């Protein structure tokens, strides 16, 4: 149905009209218990999804229960009142649905995908586990094994995972972003049933959630089902605020990881940067694209193509509630030392600080953002996940339609300024992963 509208709008002004049309298509409502539900009707396929965003992630943990947010994500599938152990998945799949979930430093997100005529059972399944999760000791024990395997397989197969844990641990000494989302193994081994029950009561309250439903559904039907299944779930006291502020870093920090099977050095830089709602977020996000997104980016062009110091190089800026890190990652080419690669990266960063970027580079990023916006709109999952993320990280789902305008206002001077402000030596942690032992001459 939207298709015709889009075509017409394209004849005039693509951006604004499409955005307006899309934004108008979205409807949200809030239940009395504080749960907000956003509906994005899209009838292109006879399917829909439900994305439940919970404002809880590893930042809500403390030593002793690190990783519990992610573990909890697993436990949400292990049995409630009406639907006991295994039933959530069995009933969902028998109705043509599938699900997954993911946990980040800030959020836990549950995703259900289903033929649109199975929507009611999805509501029922979700309501049952939100209100009446029943955690039993046996499921807890077997799930510890599953999560231990998830943790190990990440470390076994990904150098990034291994080095990332160490870098975060060094870059943050106070804030809970210090540990990985999957947590310390000793905490996975030891948290108690009571820890989990407390966690559920505190964080899985309807007033701590934002729900997006996208696909072949109607607002009317979603309202009816939300009132029937979600409205009776009682609200809870809001969780305690995370008030820890990471103290300013005063000098470069370094970590080293020896992994004998590594075939060349891997290097990670992490610079402290502000949270997503800070005014510098867009210039920083655009800087990540300029530096490390694609073959035409600064790092790829210089280090991979021209100097051949790396086989790959990229940047990463997570969306974040609290101040977090701006990452640069590169894998050394054969016989290139980590020192040489590190100098190469620093030199590219310094070029932006001292010489700035060109208007054309900036325009490229703006164009790319516009096209990526449409790539997101091409799937119901892209829509649901992105709208929910904007709501949580930017304070409003509507911001998704405003992002390209915000970027349009960013200047080459802004990019240079944020590079100068944040990409400083004293503000960074550098992690190196390599095969050789960490021994220098004169050391034992």
């Amino acid at each position: 149905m939207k298709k015709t509208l889009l075509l017409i709008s394209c004849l005039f002004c693509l951006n604004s009209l499409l955005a307006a049309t899309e934004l108008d298509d979205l409807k949200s409502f809030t239940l009395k218990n504080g749960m907000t539900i956003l509906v994005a009707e899209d009838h292109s396929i006879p399917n829909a999804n439900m994305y439940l965003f919970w404002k809880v992630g590893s930042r809500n943990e403390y030593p002793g229960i690190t990783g519990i947010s992610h573990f909890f994500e697993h436990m949400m599938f292990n049995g409630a009142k009406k639907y006991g152990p295994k039933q959530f998945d069995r009933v969902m799949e028998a109705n043509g649905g599938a699900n997954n979930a993911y946990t980040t430093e800030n959020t836990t997100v549950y995703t259900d995908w289903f033929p649109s005529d199975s929507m009611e059972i999805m509501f029922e399944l979700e309501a049952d586990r939100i209100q009446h999760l029943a955690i039993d000791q046996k499921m807890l024990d077997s799930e510890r094994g599953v999560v231990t395997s998830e943790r190990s397989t990440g470390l076994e197969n990904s150098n990034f995972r291994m080095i990332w844990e160490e870098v975060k641990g060094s870059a943050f000494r106070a804030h809970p972003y210090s540990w990985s989302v999957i947590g310390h193994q000793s905490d996975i081994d030891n948290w108690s049933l009571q820890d989990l029950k407390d966690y559920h009561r505190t964080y899985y309250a309807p007033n701590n959630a934002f729900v997006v439903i996208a696909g072949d559904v109607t607002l009317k039907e979603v309202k009816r089902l939300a009132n029937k299944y979600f409205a009776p779930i009682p609200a809870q006291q809001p969780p305690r605020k995370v008030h820890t502020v990471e103290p300013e870093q005063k000098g470069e920090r370094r970590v080293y990881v020896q992994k004998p099977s590594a075939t060349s050095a891997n290097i990670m830089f992490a610079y402290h940067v502000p949270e997503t709602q800070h005014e510098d977020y867009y210039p920083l996000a655009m800087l990540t694209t300029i530096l490390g997104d694609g073959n035409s980016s600064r790092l790829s062009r210089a280090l991979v193509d021209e100097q051949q110091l790396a086989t790959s190089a990229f940047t990463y800026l997570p969306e974040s509630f609290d101040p977090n890190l701006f990452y640069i990652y590169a894998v050394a080419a054969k016989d290139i030392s980590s020192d040489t690669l590190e100098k190469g990266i620093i030199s590219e960063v310094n070029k932006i600080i001292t010489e700035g970027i060109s208007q054309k580079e900036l325009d490229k990023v703006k164009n790319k953002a516009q096209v990526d916006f449409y790539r997101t709109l091409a799937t119901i999952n892209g829509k649901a996940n992105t709208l929910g993320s904007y709501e949580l990280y930017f304070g409003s789902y509507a911001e998704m339609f405003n992002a390209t305008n915000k970027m349009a206002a960013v200047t080459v001077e802004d990019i240079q300024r944020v590079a100068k402000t944040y990409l400083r030596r004293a503000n960074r942690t550098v992690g190196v992963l390599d095969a050789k032992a960490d021994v220098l001459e004169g050391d034992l």
Partner: protein
Amino acid sequence: MKSLTHIIFSILIILFIGSTSVNAAFKIPKYETYTLENGLQVYLMQQSEVPMVNVSLVVKSGAMHDGKLFGLANLTGEALQFGSGKLSKTEIEDQLAFLGAEINSNTSTEMSFLNISFMTKDTDIIFPLFSDIALKPSFDETEFSKFKKRFLAQLEQRKESPRGIIGDAFARLYFGEHPYGNPVSGNDKTVSKIALSDVKSFYKNYYTPKNSALIVVGDFNKKSWIKSIEKQFSQWQGDAPKEKLMPLNSSPNQSNVLLINKGDAIETTFLIGGKGISANHPDAVAVQVINTILGGRFTSWLNDELRVNSGLTYGARSNFNSYQYGGNFTISTFTKTASTFEALDLATKTYMRIWEKGIDQETLSSAKAYVKGRFPPRYETSGQLASLLARMWSLSLDDSYINSFETNVDSLDIEKANEIARRLFPKDNLQYVLVGKADDIRENAKTYGKLKEVEIKD
């Protein structure tokens, strides 16, 4: 994450599956197809949800055509982007990136794709550029050497990850010398031997209009595209390559165990498998439903036993890799070194349920609903629809491939399901690949079949 879902071993699901939703029958969107005078098959499918276009040039050339130079088809696909017409590699990259267009070369065992996605408004700039990349590659010598050097390093890096190498190892173990066992990316020994002249001659032999299809899906003006395609592609000349495919060997007549040592491994990653089916096998839909029950979804037998009941692993699944004339089947999972054989035995025991206990009605009904419900999202984007058309073209499948899927799923009853399961899933002489710390698992591994041990870095 709760589960790895579809990405467990990177080789997986080239397949299809699915059917329509429970309510309305899902049909393939309307499209047109015609042949240019030079033999190039053209597909046009309009999808106007977003103002973008996806173009794919699909060539029936893949790793199976590599000869002894494994990796040649893949390298040829990559080499298309090393410069074309009047533009250098970096000029192409800059022009495309400036417009937010994304291009990629993608090679599999049987096919090669050159895909691009871009904004409809940029068509007049992008499509001629794309055509030049496809038809007038300059195969720049310097870019080729640089890429080859980097790619060799990446092949080495891949050996850091059991998951990165295990699929190729199994394919070689199962298919033996047959070209279906050729590793798509090649290996360090073969790639180092590939010269630019090999790439040029591979391109000349296989990248011909009679061996290719051009697929356009998205929001576009049909009339002007038909004209542009005529303008850009009608001069392209060349015949379809003549080739004979080596007949598939009969399945191995004994169990083999390939043990790949990774000295610092903390877990064992393994595949168990055997004979599969061809892509257009008459029972392919039924096999897909049955595999869903065995290892194709979260509540599958394998995941339920190895993950949910025992906590041995984060995930266990099974897959069919199907090609035009044959295929293989694998069960895949991983577990900490100490529980290697507990997991291996449990996987085998669970698999044997096909013959020992069989499938029950409730599970079959659930799996049928599942594959039908998961079907439409596989064909949601222009890129997905382009892949679908490419598959239909290469395997000469008609619209019933999509439109009759639901009927095919529905017609599978419990007797037929059990009969097909027992007949088409491999039972004897299973093949094993284990990647882990050999010193800790070697002795026990020997009891599963004839053992061969190699180093992961070999």
